[in-house]
């Protein structure tokens, strides 16, 4: 039983790692009060997803999918790399927008702590 688990873990450890990193990011996104930390959490979350995708692509003994002369070269699956390239760009874009928003919030409210922002918001009501 334990052995099975260990084997399961050892053969899939990077999926598990990706999951753990995802969870860290997700926790930060929800629980952190500082808006910048939320964005950092968001980045961690996304990075973990990249890791997940890249793990999917891996083939044992494979090399980067750039053709080299030779017949029995094993290449890793190129498709997830492409997807993740796209996802990275999306992540960068979202981060940029998030920081821009955070900057504007700081300019308008003078703080980026969510608790204080909520208080300020309710006072104005």
């Amino acid at each position, binding site marked *: 039983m334990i052995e099975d688990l260990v084997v*399961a873990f050892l*053969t*899939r*450890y*990077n*999926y*598990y790692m990706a*999951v*753990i990193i*995802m*969870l860290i990011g*997700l*926790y930060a996104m*929800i*629980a952190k*009060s500082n808006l910048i930390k939320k964005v950092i959490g968001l980045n961690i979350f996304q990075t973990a997803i990249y890791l997940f995708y890249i*793990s*999917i*692509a*891996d*083939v*044992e*003994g*494979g090399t980067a*999918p*750039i*053709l080299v002369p030779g017949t029995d070269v*094993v*290449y890793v*699956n*190129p*498709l*997830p*790399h*492409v*997807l993740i*390239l*796209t996802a990275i*760009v*999306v992540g*960068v*874009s*979202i981060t*940029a*927008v998030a920081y*821009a*928003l955070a*900057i*504007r919030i700081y300019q308008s409210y003078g703080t980026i702590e969510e608790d204080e922002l909520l208080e300020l918001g309710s006072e104005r009501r």
Partner: protein
Amino acid sequence: MKRWAALLTVIVVGALLLWAEGDMPAFGDPDAPAHAHVAPRYIEEGAEETGAANLVSAILADFRSFDTLGEITVIFTAGVSVILLLRRGERL
């Protein structure tokens, strides 16, 4: 309160993912379905068909180039977003 909500979310999401990960094909398994369906053609014929040795580029700029168009639209959108949010006092 918020912390507990976050923790709960994390636990649920984590449990789901870990549950699924147990069924995943082993890391690096060359027989995984992911490598069996669409990918082989990219690897075997992609270079000849597109003239690019870099298969990632071949897919990025040819097979799935529409994704890439979407992608630079995303980044363009982000650029305009930042302009819209932050730039002041100028035209544009």
